[in-house]
């Protein structure tokens, strides 16, 4: 078996960073990253971007050396992706914050409201219901992060955690402040409005969870395979007939329900911003599905049936 030689250059300065000889032609890029890490311990594999071309796309960890368009002396380019943090860590921090912050406002911890209200509870039962729903939502997200989701990438850039936490923590504090405020005004249409809102919220929570389970089952453990998701026996997954990302659809629905339940403008604003972001993600996902699968169902829209 003929061994390869691998030369790794810096993509920006073209400096020679590493020379590997006697490399097995069946080595994957992942294995080469591990070898590179040994000579440069500060660049752990997750923060390495290895490409064939200094300005080209990153090669995948699964790519095999001899299948790449290189000679027996391969020249690869390296770009530092910056400090990385695992998706699981990010999600736990992002979701743990809102859970705890909301509860602080709910229990009216000192220094938030007027001192005479410290540790009191609201007299409106919708406020208690809202706290249960909000907490349930984030507990569900935390559990899904730990036990349900399968991530394609292990990590994301470190700066994302600051950006994401600011968004989640900031908005949840802003919403919680008003919902748990001593001067909170309950919904205009009273009981009926709250009950309808609760039904919408629960329906969408179950729907969202069903989609997450369906997506998990598409991908066997340890695999990074990509397949078209289809409706299963669970009726909540039948939304796949009309939409590429029903998890986002249900997520928006949950927050619409929560907005209706609390009749709070900051919540409506949060719902709107979340919807815009998820619509952008859904459009991207939809486009990549269309590109990757020729037989992708034509009836589906990205996030809203027949509309968006």
């Amino acid at each position, binding site marked *: 078996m003929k061994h390869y030689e691998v030369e790794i250059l810096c993509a920006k300065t073209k400096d020679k960073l590493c020379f590997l000889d006697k490399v097995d032609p069946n080595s994957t890029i992942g294995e080469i990253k591990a070898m590179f890490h040994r000579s440069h311990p500060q660049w752990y594999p997750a923060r390495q971007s290895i490409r064939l071309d200094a300005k080209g796309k990153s090669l995948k960890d699964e790519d095999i050396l001899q299948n790449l368009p290189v000679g027996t002396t391969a020249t690869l380019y390296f770009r530092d992706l910056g400090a990385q943090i695992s998706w699981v860590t990010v999600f736990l921090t992002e979701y743990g914050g809102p859970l705890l912050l909301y509860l602080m406002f709910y229990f009216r911890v000192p220094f938030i409201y007027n001192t005479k209200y410290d540790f009191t509870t609201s007299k409106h039962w919708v406020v208690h219901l809202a706290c249960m729903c909000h907490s349930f939502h984030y507990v569900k997200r935390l559990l899904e992060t730990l036990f349900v989701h399968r991530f394609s990438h292990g990590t994301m850039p470190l700066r994302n955690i600051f950006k994401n936490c600011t968004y989640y923590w900031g908005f949840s504090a802003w919403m919680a402040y008003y*919902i748990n405020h001593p001067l909170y*005004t309950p919904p205009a249409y009273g009981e009926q409005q709250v009950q309808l809102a609760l039904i919408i919220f629960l329906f969408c929570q179950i729907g969202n969870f069903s989609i997450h389970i369906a997506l998990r089952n598409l991908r066997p453990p340890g695999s990074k395979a990509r397949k078209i998701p289809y409706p299963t026996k669970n009726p909540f997954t039948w939304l796949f007939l009309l939409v590429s990302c029903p998890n986002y659809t249900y997520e928006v629905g949950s927050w619409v329900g929560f907005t209706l339940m609390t009749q709070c*403008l900051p919540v409506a604003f949060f719902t709107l911003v979340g919807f815009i972001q998820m619509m952008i993600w859904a459009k991207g996902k939809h486009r990549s599905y269309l590109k990757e699968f020729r037989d992708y169902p034509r009836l589906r829209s990205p996030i809203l049936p027949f509309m968006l």
Partner: protein
Amino acid sequence: MASSEEDGSAEDKENNKKKTKRPFVTAWLTIYNIVMTAGWMVLAVAMIRFYIQKGTHKGLYKSISRTLKFFQTFALLEIFHCAFGMVRTSVIVTGVQVCSRIFMVWFVTHSIKQIQNEESVLLFLVAWTVTEITRYSFYTFSLLNHLPYFIKWARYNLFIVLYPVGVAGELLTIYAALPYVRKSGMLSVRLPNKYNVSFDYYICLIIVMLSYIPLFPQLFFHMLRQRRKVLHGEVMVEKED
């Protein structure tokens, strides 16, 4: 804050490409930039005339406020130019810059009449006027493919003085407006209300002032980098000749 500044060198190349492919877009942009150059020149002349005739800046804002509001609001079109790909700049960058101007004109000087005669208002008006005349004439001449060097020089050098002066004028004006906002409670909503929201315009203005701290240096250093690229590139070409 400052005027919308674009990547001069890349934009020139883009304009050349556009000229051969999209005559209507180029025609519209040329007309737009000529009109805006003229508008800000009218403002400049009106301001100079007022000062010469009256010898004071008091009442100056009131005399030019309608023209200022018209042309500064008209600049909202620039967001659409970016959004429709007619101009190659980020929609967000242009949006932030135009909106900060709109905010200053409509939500500070227009709404809080008591500060209209402050010296700081004159400060940013002068900075804006000189900047916009330079900027719009730069775009006009670039589109006509005949850019006099002094305009390019002005655009990439005057900002070093005009930018901080403008920011100083804006910040001092907002600061002067604070007590009047506090007293009148304008544009503010208090609890309890049907939508369970509150808004304090006073706090909002303070947050706006604080936002200058991260934003101003970023924009300023971006312009410095552009300057080095454009003017430094110029020098290298001459050497090759």
